């Protein structure tokens, strides 16, 4: 029995992208954040703050995985164009939509797998202090899944619009930096922040993901999640539609 087209494409995407370089970006970078920031900033909190901060940081770093997974998705499309595999796959037994969904679902797998590895890593560091219920974990992984599709769509959209490799890489690095640090991944929202930074925090989808994941961990979603999660879902659908449209248009010029 032959596997469905999307599954074959996902198998290929995972097989091709599970290499040391991708794993360092996907797992190594967030893991370093977890360890260095966890202990570094935690040490500044008096009275055994490292454990408390690591407990706070863990769902944030898990959420950050959806950004990393998105960048892997964008890079997949970029590499397939650059190395001719996009055109080769499009003359194979697949539709254009299957190709796009194959990348999207691969990003999703990478996002969830990366978040799971971060969770295991955090357990290894702080042990039983990291309390999470099954419901809490499911909430966190659910919202990270949505976030992975959001950032996967965003990176596919950028990948479809940008024509130069250098420009794509620069945008990707800038985006990771801004999205990561203008969110509640490392610290909670504070109304004493300068207004432009407050706005960035509030419109940043990673804030929505991190808030919901953190809330899930402690067993109660924050009030803001009642509008942030639906907004994230709507934004994800819009972005996915835009990415599909741009991809279908732009790939013609590449094949």
């Amino acid at each position, binding site marked *: 029995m*032959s596997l469905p087209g999307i599954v074959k494409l996902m198998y290929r995407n995972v*097989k091709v992208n599970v*290499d040391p370089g991708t794993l360092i970006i996907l797992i190594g970078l967030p893991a370093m954040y977890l360890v260095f920031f966890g202990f570094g900033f935690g040490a500044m909190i008096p009275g055994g703050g490292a454990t408390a901060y690591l407990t706070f940081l863990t769902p944030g770093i898990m959420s950050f995985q959806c950004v990393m997974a998105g960048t892997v998705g964008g890079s997949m499309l970029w590499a397939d164009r650059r190395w*001719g595999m996009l055109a080769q796959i499009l003359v194979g037994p697949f539709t254009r939509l299957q190709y796009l969904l194959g990348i999207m679902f691969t990003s999703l797998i990478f996002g969830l797998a990366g978040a799971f590895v971060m969770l295991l890593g955090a357990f290894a560091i702080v042990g039983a202090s990291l309390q999470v219920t099954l419901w809490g974990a499911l909430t966190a992984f659910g919202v990270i899944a949505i976030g992975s599709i959001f950032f996967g769509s965003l990176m596919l959209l950028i990948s479809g619009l940008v024509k130069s490799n250098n420009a794509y890489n620069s945008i990707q690095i800038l985006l990771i930096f801004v999205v990561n640090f203008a969110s509640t991944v490392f610290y909670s929202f504070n109304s004493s922040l300068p207004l432009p930074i407050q706005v960035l925090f509030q419109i940043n989808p990673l804030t929505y993901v991190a808030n919901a994941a953190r809330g899930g961990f402690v067993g109660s979603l924050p009030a803001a999640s009642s509008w942030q999660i639906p907004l994230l879902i709507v934004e994800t659908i819009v972005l996915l539609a835009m990415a599909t449209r741009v991809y279908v248009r732009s790939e013609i010029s590449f094949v």
Partner: protein
Amino acid sequence: MTLQISENEQMSPARVDMSTQQVIAVENLRHSYDGKSFALDDVTFGVKKGEVFGLLGKNGAGKTTLIKALTTLIKPTSGKLSILGLDPRRDGKEIRQRIGVVQQGESFDFATVEGNFDIYGVLWGVPTRIRQQRRDELIKSFGLQDVRKKRAFDLSGGQKRRVQVARELMHDMDVLFLDEPTTGLDVIMRRELLDSVRERARKGLTVVFTTHNLEEADYVCDRVAVVDEGKILAMDTVENLKRLYGGKKTVEVTLAGGDGQGFFDRLRIRLAGNGSELKAEGNSAVILTNDPKGTLQRIMELSQETGVQMDWLNIRKNTLEDVFISSVTKTEHE
């Protein structure tokens, strides 16, 4: 200027003559990338089952655009097109399940040679046991044993091309499109590939083959079409094309020195009216003519008059290359 395509010109499936087992039918096909000029202009041809059909043309002639249209990568602006009796607009995926395509550019996954074969086999749904067996056979027959564990990107140009062609043969197909497949291959590997194409065609595979190399087109193709500026200029069996263009023979002349351009300009004037076509480059010229004796005589006369010595003078039968040059230059002059 924007190209206007009338409604009755919109793309519709071409009529497939099943009695001749025609598997590709193209009728009045046109394609424009920019809406201003046509990359394909009124192209019509058919390819029968088991035929090796060659597309000859210089760079930018439209060969690759035609391959893209035939393999459903681009949607033609207008005209009729049918592959295996299917309509590319409706049945793209079904067509793609039954064709193989070796594209002109490189295409590899970031994996070893073996890995590229395996991934491709999975994409095409080749069962594991058959996949491994085919992979090993193809790696052996394409002389890739020594590099099977190397990353595809680390190979030489010729090795990469071999991987690309061999990888395509991992899956079954009814039609194989080869876009300049022999680029970078050494002479022996090229001949083996062409023999393999012929053998597969003998067993019923239909092959569309684009090339710059006219000798290999002569060797492998049952019929060829000469393409230039998006149009088919000539199309027939190789033998018929040669016959069509001769009667004619080819006179080759190389001057020992002197003003080549001046000499050939004067010769061109003297040959005017006897149906000769002269193509000069530096101190050499190739003349396609119906009157080889008269042409030789005029060359000798001019040589004596001008005192320009000749290094090489030869009359030979037409080759496919002569047909190609003749049909393309004729269009340029027109």
